[in-house]
């Protein structure tokens, strides 16, 4: 597995120093692993004083990010031709800092996929809340894009459920691919 997945640039939100850690997982993701850690995330949030609406948004962003790793990480154990029961590597961190939740995911992607992500995320970054909602409504009524394994709504959903603009980084991965980091704030 890619050792750079566990590197954390969010030094103030880092697992080792931060008291606000809700959940952190690095390793291979499959749908079964998502089910199990999804339960842990839900329970952890339910035991905190986080309001129900906010918990639901955090859970939604977590699921979309984790399923993106299963679908699109370039570090995979299962064959490229498999479209079910996939297993691919990445990390997801949910942490609390100064009263806000940060949800950060990281996974390697191919150069082609990095270009696709950059295009979509640059477009999302400059949209207002209303424009994101409008774009979501339009995509819901359109056919899914050819490159998508879902409905082409994943990044729009993350942007819609975040309370500020989503941030991302695409950095050279010493192993040859591109290391993708996505951060949502609530």
């Amino acid at each position, binding site marked *: 597995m890619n050792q750079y997945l566990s590197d954390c640039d969010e030094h103030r939100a880092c697992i080792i120093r931060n008291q606000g850690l809700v959940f952190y997982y690095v390793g291979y993701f499959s*749908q079964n692993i*998502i089910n199990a850690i999804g339960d842990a995330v839900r329970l952890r949030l339910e035991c905190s004083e986080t309001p129900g609406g906010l918990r*639901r*948004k955090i859970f939604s962003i977590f699921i979309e990010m984790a399923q993106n790793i299963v679908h699109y990480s370039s570090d995979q154990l299962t064959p490229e031709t498999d479209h*079910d029961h996939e297993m691919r590597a990445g990390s997801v961190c949910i942490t609390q800092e100064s009263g806000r939740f940060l949800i950060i995911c990281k996974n390697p992607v191919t150069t082609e996929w990095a270009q696709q992500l950059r295009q979509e995320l640059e477009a999302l970054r400059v949209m207002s809340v209303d424009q994101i909602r409008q774009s979501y409504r339009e995509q819901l009524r359109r056919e899914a894009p050819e490159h998508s394994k879902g*409905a082409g709504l994943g990044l729009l959903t993350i942007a819609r459920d975040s309370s500020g603009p989503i941030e991302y980084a695409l950095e050279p991965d010493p192993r040859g691919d591109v290391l993708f980091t996505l951060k949502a704030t609530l």
Partner: protein
Amino acid sequence: METRLYIPPSPNTPEVDFDFAARRLCLRGESYPESAVGFYHEILQRTRDFLGGLEEDEIHVVIELRYFNSSSTKMLFNLVDELNTAARAGNSITLDWYHDPEDDTMLEFGQELADDFPEIHFRAIPVENT
């Protein structure tokens, strides 16, 4: 005509109880499968076949989902689109949309369906968290 489609719930898929003979279609639980298209394909196909054979009938639909992911949202939209086609063909369709009162996303999506498909009798019903 087939009488019933039943799929038991799993950690990431809903209980599907489409009792075609009783004209009652229920979806309950979670919906975030690895492939929503894969999970919903047959459900949509069989529902379409069932609705296509109806004339001036009454159908009661219950959707009570705790959470659904982005690709399931699309599949639900397609399902309600099928129901709307049946309503326009002269059938009476009632959709009970259960939602957590604290969950804006769920209620907003339900209201969007109600606005998009006005020929369906839409009822938003708040449920308390368990």
